[in-house]
Each structure stands twice: as C-alpha cells, then as structure tokens.
C-alpha cells in the first residue's frame, strides 16, 4: 500500500456525496425575494502561511522533478533505445491486463456489495458493512503470501487479479456505500411513482449519481495497481514497479530506473486524466447536508440466501483464507521453535515500526497543516493549486518517491541518505493527502463563524483556538493521524528502498522471511500487521455511517 490510499479515499467519499440533497428552499422568504448569498469570505492569506504551504507543495512535487531531470540526463538516443525495447512493451502489456481485469472486477464487487448492504433488507447489515471493509486490515502482500503458500501454482496474472481484486474492492465499496446512505429517497420514489420498477429506478436515478463515487474508488484501485509491488513480486508478475525495484537491486542505474519511473509517472497521469473525464461534471455537495429520508430497504425475498452466500464467499476469500493461513503458519512456527526466541525479535520490530509510524504520522499532519488552513480559511485559485499539486505528487507510487529521494539525497545532501529522516520524509509525502483531508474536515468542523462567535463573546486568539477550534477539530485530526500511522506500519515499497541499514520494520522482516520461503518465520510479522490494521477498518467504517 504505497499509494495514498485513504486520503483520496476520503476525498472520493466526499465526492460521493455529490448528488446529496440540495440546500433546503427558504420557505420563509416571500416569493419575490432572493435567497441570501452565502459566500465564504476570501481574505488574503498571510504571507507566512502562503509560504509554508508553497514549500510543502514544492516538497511533494520534488520527486517528479527529480525523476524527470534524471531521466532526461542521459544521451537522448540511448533513452529512446531503452524505451522501445520489447521488454518495455511486455511490462506495458502486463500492467494493462492487470488494470483491465482488476478495475472492473472491483467496481462490480464494490458497487454490488454496497447496494446489498445499504439498500436491501439483507440480514445484519451492520456486520456486513464491517466485513466488507475487513480486507483493508490484511495488507495485500500478506494475502498474496497466504494464497501462494497454500496454492503455489497460483502465480501469474490469475493470482495477481484474484488477490488485488479481493484486497482493493473496499476502495470502491467505501465511497459508494457512504453515498448510498446519504442519497435521499425522494428521487427513487418519484421514479417508482412514475411506473418504474425498483431495479429500474436504481439504475436510472441512483446509479448515475454514484458516478463520482465509483470513479473515485476506481481511480484509487488503479493507482494502487500501478504502485503495487509486494503482491506482484510474489505472484511473479512483472510490471513497471517490480521492474524498477529489480533494476535497483541488480545495480543502481539511475538513468534507467528513472526512465522506467517516468513511464510509470505517465501512466499515473493517464489514469488521473481518465478519472477526471469519467467523473463528469458532478456537483460536489457537502456531506450530511440535511438528513433527508432514507428509502425503504428493498426486500430480497428468495434472493436473500444467494446474496448472503455471495457476500460470505467474498469474506471467506478475502479475509478468512489469509487469516487462517497466517494462523496455521503461526502454529507451525511455534511447534518448530519451542524456545520462542522469535518473540523478543517480534516485539523489537513492532516497536521500531510503531515508532516510525508515529513520527511519520506527526510529520504528515504538521506538513499538511498550512495547506489545509489555506484551503479552508482562504479558498481561492492559489489554495486549489497547492491542493492539486499535493494530491498529484502523492498519487505517485512509493517506488518513484523513494527513488527520487535517494537520487536527491545522494547528490545534494549526502548526510541524510540512509537516515530515518529520509524514510519519514517519504512517508510524509506519500500519505500527505490523508492528513490533509482529515485536517480539512477538522477545520470544517470548526468554521470561522464559530470562531467569530467566540471572539464576540470576549475570547482572544488563543482562547478561540483552545476553547473552540481544537476541541472541535481534534477528532478528525486524530483520525487522520491514525490513518497515516497505520498506512506507514504496513508500507513495504518505499521502506525497502529507504530504510537505513539496521532498521527493521514488520513489513521488511516479513518480506525477507518470505523471500527465503520461510513461511513460518514470516507468520508472526504478518499476524502483527493484521492486528495493527484492525483499527483501520473501524475508522473507515465510521466514514460510511457518520
């Protein structure tokens, strides 16, 4: 999970609310009178704030610049020769097939599951809602390891599609389910009263409004696929990301690695462009605008059993299999190594992982603050530019960011190469959008109107911050911090490249054990990563129901 998953995820969920009920008509106004214009004050931002936000945006764009400069530094002819090799074509084809198969599969699975859970009388919907998000608690490469260890023949495209689909469909499920919950019953009911059946009404009134949520979720899946390393390496399925890492392992050729990374970058831009087009000109409404009425759940009748069976099968494949396999290897391992020397090791690695995660989370929140304040309090073209740059840079694969930081640190500040600082910086760049989205929703919970109300009641700046802004913003900021920290604790790609020698994380320890095919030794680290990720499911579930 090297892509900024849930930052964009939340954004997608918010965009998902696009079609939500519009503002209530002002009933009290006489017909001739215009409704009041409500505009956010657009005050010029303070120079300090603007400078800080610009610096952060520049930092996030840095990797792109470095990669492009490096890729262009060799003789042009050589670069072209390298890029037209059949090998590049093969990598492109592999990436293409993976996308073409996995993205639609996650959309079908995600939308179908969301519809069943949110719109029908499926038994125990609350439980299913959690279970559909549970795959997020199992890092995709752990799930790949589980499948490979029970079915070694699964390598190749088939295995890659299976594992990635099961691991990533919640990215579609989450925003779609959140949107389905906020959509008002009104339009569906009007369609029904005009003689359209329940399924037709869903397709003609609800589905079109799901477009932004679906395309946002699909975008996330696509970006994850481009960035995926662990799963594909285990499935021995070569794409650009795996090729870049192999290139790097074989002997670090800056220019070639950068050329591959440039192609990957172009693919990312392509995906982002396609998504913008697919999203359409959907209006983005605020979440929770008016409670609206929830439609009556559609009775499943005799379809209840097949529906439950289908969802159950998904859970079995996506969650039960990996967890059971990890548990079995755990048992095998304890039987082999009775002395339990592994426990101290596990605790040590967990400790350093948690330490990195906490520091990285703090750094991401700190770096996200200027941009978030700028966007919330001084919206305007400049703020939007800062936001776009941050999101764009952060949708780059971890491998690109890591490569760029290595190149940069070696040539400019050799002192920080092979330090935890560089690794933390990479984490912060990768997961900045998550932090920013959370900070923004925190600031939105403490709107300037409330700050003004506090001031007219005699509070000065510090009082406003301490008594109004912080208490209101704290829950989302904390949630954002936790999301970033959890993502860091299972990050593999950038960590592989940037971790200073001697620093072990759970993902690294797990990875080196599986590389030696020592599945039993890998199991405790896998189990710990799953355990650490459980809160993620809980946090994300709250995004649907709140």
């Amino acid at each position, binding site marked *: 999970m090297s892509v900024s998953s849930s930052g964009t995820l939340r954004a997608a969920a918010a965009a998902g609310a696009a079609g939500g009920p519009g503002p209530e008509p002002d009933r*009290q106004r006489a017909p001739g009178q215009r409704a009041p214009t409500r505009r956010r004050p657009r005050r010029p931002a303070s120079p300090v704030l603007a400078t800080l936000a610009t610096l952060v945006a520049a930092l996030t764009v840095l990797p792109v610049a470095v990669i492009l400069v490096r890729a262009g530094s060799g003789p042009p002819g050589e670069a072209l020769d390298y890029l037209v090799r059949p090998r590049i074509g093969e990598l492109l084809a592999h990436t293409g097939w993976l996308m073409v198969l996995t993205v639609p599969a996650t959309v079908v699975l995600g939308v179908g599951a969301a519809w069943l859970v949110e719109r029908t009388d499926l038994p125990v919907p609350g439980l299913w809602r959690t279970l559909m998000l549970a795959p997020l608690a199992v890092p995709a490469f752990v799930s790949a390891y589980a499948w490979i260890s029970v079915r070694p023949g699964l390598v190749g495209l088939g295995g890659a599609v299976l594992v990635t689909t099961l691991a990533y469909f919640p990215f579609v499920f989450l925003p779609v389910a959140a949107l389905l919950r906020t959509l008002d019953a009104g339009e569906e009911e009007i369609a029904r009263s005009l003689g359209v059946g329940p399924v037709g009404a869903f397709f003609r009134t609800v589905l079109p409004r799901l477009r932004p949520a679906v395309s946002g979720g699909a975008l996330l899946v696509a970006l994850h696929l481009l960035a995926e390393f662990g799963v594909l390496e285990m499935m021995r399925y070569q794409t650009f990301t795996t090729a870049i890492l192999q290139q790097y392992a074989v002997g670090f050729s800056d220019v070639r690695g950068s050329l591959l990374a440039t192609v990957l970058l172009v693919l990312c831009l392509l995906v982002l462009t396609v998504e913008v087009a697919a999203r359409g000109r959907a209006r983005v409404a605020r979440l929770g605008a008016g409670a609206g009425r929830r439609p009556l759940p559609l009775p499943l009748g005799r379809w209840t059993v097949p529906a439950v069976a289908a969802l159950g099968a998904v859970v079995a494949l996506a969650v039960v299999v990996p967890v059971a396999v990890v548990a079995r290897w755990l048992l095998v391992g304890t039987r082999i190594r009775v002395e339990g020397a592994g426990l101290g090791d596990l605790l040590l690695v967990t400790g350093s992982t948690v330490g990195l995660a906490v520091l990285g989370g703090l750094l991401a929140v700190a770096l996200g603050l200027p941009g978030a304040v700028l966007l919330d309090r001084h919206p305007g073209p400049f703020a939007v530019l800062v936001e776009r740059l941050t999101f764009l840079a952060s949708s780059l694969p971890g491998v690109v960011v890591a490569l760029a930081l290595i190149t940069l640190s070696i040539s400019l500040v050799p002192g920080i190469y092979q330090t935890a600082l560089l690794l933390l910086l990479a984490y912060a760049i990768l997961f900045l959008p998550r932090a920013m989205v959370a900070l923004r929703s925190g600031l939105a*919970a403490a709107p300037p109107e409330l700050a003004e*109300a506090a*001031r*007219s*009641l005699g509070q000065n700046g510090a009082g406003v911050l301490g008594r109004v802004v912080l*208490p209101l913003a704290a829950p989302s900021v904390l949630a954002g911090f936790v999301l970033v920290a959890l993502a860091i604790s299972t990050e593999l790609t950038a960590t592989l490249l940037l971790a200073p020698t001697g620093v072990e994380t759970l993902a690294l320890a797990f990875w080196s054990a599986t590389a030696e095919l020592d599945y039993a030794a890998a199991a405790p680290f896998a189990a710990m990563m799953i355990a650490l990720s459980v809160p993620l499911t809980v946090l994300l579930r709250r995004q649907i129901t709140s």
Partner: protein
Amino acid sequence: MSEVRLSGVRAGYGDVEILHGVDLAVPSGGTTAVLGDSGSGKTTLLKVISGFLRPDAGQVQVGGRTVAGDDAWVAPERRGVGYVRQDGGLFPHLSVAGNIAFGLPRTGIARRGRAHRDRVLELLDLVELPADVAERRPDQLSGGQQQRVALARALAPRPDLVLLDEPFSSLDTALRTATREATARALQASGATTLLVTHDQGEAMSFADEIAVLRQGAFGQIAPPRTIYGEPVDAHIASFMGEAIPIHGLASHNQFRCALGNLEAAGFVTRGAVVAILRPEQLRLVAPGEGSVDARVSRVTYFGHDSVADLELVSGTPLKGLRARVVGPEAPAVGDTVGLWVVGPVRVFPG
C-alpha cells in the same frame, strides 16, 4: 448619548465596496431595525460594528468609544458587543449551559457551565426556555430554541449593545412570532441597546423604535415605524414598506386632483404633475354614489382577518392596482358596485 454611532462608514470585500458611507445613531437602550433587501449589506454593517470587518473609511463608536476609524481599532473581543448571527452558530461541542456560560469570566476553579449555574438559569428564564434544556446539546434543540440559546449566550456577558442578524428568519411563522416576542422581552429586561437586521417589514415595525432602510449600501431613511410607513421620503421607500398604489395627478397647495377626485395631499407638494401613494387600507367602501367616485369589484381575495377587493372605476378611467383592504366579514362580492372614500392624506412625490 448614543450607544452606537456610525459616521461615513465605507466598507466592502476586496475591491468591491458594499457600504458607501453609512451614518447611523442608536440611542442608549434603543432598538433600531435595519431593513433591506437580500444582499443590500445588512450583515456587512453588523460585521463592521462587531469588528469582523475593518471599514475602509469613516468611524464607528460604541458607547462613546471609537472602536474603528481615526487610526483606532478595538479587537472584536474587547468591544462588549453581543452578536447573534444569522445562523445561530452554537458551539456543537458544548452543552446549552456551556454555550451560555462561554463568554462569562472563567475563574480558577470554574468548570464550564457549573460555576455560572445561576447565571445560566437566569438567562434561560430570560429567554423563556425551561431549565432542563441546560444539559442538552445544541442538536437536541428545535430551531427556535437554538435561536433563544444563541440570544442567551450573547446576553450572558451583559453587553451594552446586542446585534441580531435575522435571528428569526429560519423559523416558521408561528414560532417566529413567539420567539420574536420572547426576544423583545428579554432584550427589554436586559436594557441592552439593540440593532436588529431583518428583511421583514412587519417584524421591523413591531420590534423596533426606529427603522433604518438600507438600500444600495446607504440608508434611505431612518425614522420611527409610523413615520416611515406614513411619511416615507420617496416612492421607493413607500412601496418597500408596504403595499402602495401609485396614482398620477395634479397638485396645487395641499390638494391632489386625480381620478379619485380631490384628495388631501401631504409631503413634498409642488405644483403640477406629481405621483401620490395611496395605501389600500386608506380606501373605504361605501354605498354607490356616497363616495367621491364609484367603482366595480373585479376580484376579492380572502385572507381571514381581512380581504382585499380589486377595483375598477365605473367611469372607465384606468387606474392600475386600485384595491381596498376590508376588515372582517364585510367584504363585497365580485361585480358589486361600490362608492370609494379616501381616508387621510395621500403622500405626494415629485413625478
């Protein structure tokens, strides 16, 4: 001495000037309603007084102290101005008691809400809410209750001046009247000077001692309700304050000659062609031939407490918008012929 005095205040957002030189004085303890169309700058005016917008020119004085202008600037929290915003704006993370006690001084041991329990209860009583809402959260209150809590919160630090920005506009008619009356009583009891912003003429007239009509960023007229309704300074304010029938005619001395006969004229009377403004309630329906002219009833709109009869002159002279307000059950029927009688003088403006 005036509690609030604005002189030549110009203010706006960025390059756009919204207030183009506003003068206003509200005496201590007085109640002034600012009336204006949506977008005319009412909220902007309150922002200037409360200190959330710096005027580009002019002076703002509160309680004799210059709070803005002449190089003076007093931060919002030091002005002692209570501000009830258009949207209420209660703190969602605090209980009702916590909201009301927010602006009260916090002593060392004081814990939110507890220390100021008596004051909170007193304020709840003042805004006519039961004491048991104190521990509720704002989202567990109805819209009208939220507005009253917002008022109680603004009144808690005993401000000398309270600004109310359309505090009743989100409420439905019945609740609106009840909340408005409770607010008026609470403000009276607190003795605070009040500036109420509204776009509802009836609300302004029933609430305030003085009405200030804001249009295009400046005050068109500032006067007591009776004056502004009965003696508007121009035809625009006349029709803004209530239904008005424009009638063209000739003036001489204080006579106004028009299709309705010779009427008594008041206001700025020049000789020659002028426009007079007649209120529908100034027309009395009498038996045919007993009024100054006869008219036929073309339509009757029934409102319960009164009816409005649309009229056409029997003589055939067109007179657009001629209608009479008839109180109670005495409404005529469509097609009736009636005599018309004009009560009181009509306001005359230069044509």
